[in-house]
């Protein structure tokens, strides 16, 4: 890998870390397009749980890992919402980069000797 590519990657990663770590705290809290459509027709409580009505998400179930310490992009035990989301976001960026970049690097096509 050339040094120029290294600088490009470092810059890109820094941007991703800033987006996931800082800007994420200012993202919209409204349900997304799919969620809003799936809940259309149902009534929900303050926590967003469905209380009645007819909608696609009527029989929605909790995630199998809903109790995990990082569930819903937060770190359990950190009370500050933006900090918790931001740290979880940075962790996610690092994990995704390491996992995908590492795998792609391992299976890449080696340059033919010329």
């Amino acid at each position, binding site marked *: 890998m050339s040094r120029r590519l290294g600088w490009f990657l470092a810059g890109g990663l820094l941007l991703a870390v800033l987006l996931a770590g800082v800007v994420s705290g200012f993202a919209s809290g409204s349900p997304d397009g799919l969620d809003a459509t799936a809940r259309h027709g149902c009534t929900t409580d303050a926590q967003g749980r469905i209380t009645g009505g007819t909608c696609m998400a009527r029989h929605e179930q909790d995630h199998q*890992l809903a109790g995990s310490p990082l569930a819903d992009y937060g770190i359990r035990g950190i009370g500050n919402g933006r900090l918790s989301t931001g740290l979880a976001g940075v962790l996610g960026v690092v994990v995704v980069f390491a996992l995908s970049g590492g795998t792609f690097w391992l299976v890449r096509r080696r340059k033919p000797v010329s």
Partner: protein
Amino acid sequence: MLTAMNVVAMHIANGIVDARTSAAFAVVSLVALGFCVLRGRADLDDRLAPMAGLVAAFIFAVQMLNFQVLPGVSGHLLGGALAATLVGPWVGALCVATVLIVQCLLFADGGLTALGLNVFNMAVLGTAAGYLVVAGLLRLLPRTPGGVAATAFVASVAGVVVASQGFVIEYAMGGTTQLSLGTIAATMAGVHTLIGIGEGLIAATTVATVARVRPDLVYALRRFRTQPAAATPEAVTA
């Protein structure tokens, strides 16, 4: 905090589509991703492999940034068209799939049972539709930062709307409630056109920036150039 509690990505939760349909789409997605690994290896060289890691990390980050599209409704980038433009369709689909798998397993976002459905819609359908638009438009538009940005914009809108209709198909096959499919299809298409425009603006800005700084890192510009390359021969035989 409200913001933290509601950071949710546009992923199908468990229990909206039944287990049998979910399992069927898990198999389809697995086969599709396997095919992407086989085809993607030809694209993965010393330059594209780390770039693809960055693209996946960037998509993960931007997926956290929900933007408002209607009162009470938000959306976020899915990333298929962006990934296809920057690293090609095969590796691009794998990038989006990696993001979805990490989101599901690490952050409990998008049901575990529904993972196959989500991978099919966003990684397979969204990337494929986005790339088809890229392949078509880049033959007409100039291969400049502006041209590739306009391409990424249109491809993003198409990719997001097609991905949203993937959900409609899955719901039609195994929805756990009986609701009007026509209404669902229209609602999903409408709201996802708006989300697609938001995604398109992000993707266009990103692609234009990369094309200005390092045009050699934009897969679509390498793949659809008119003049044959002088230094590196094209390895893709598509």
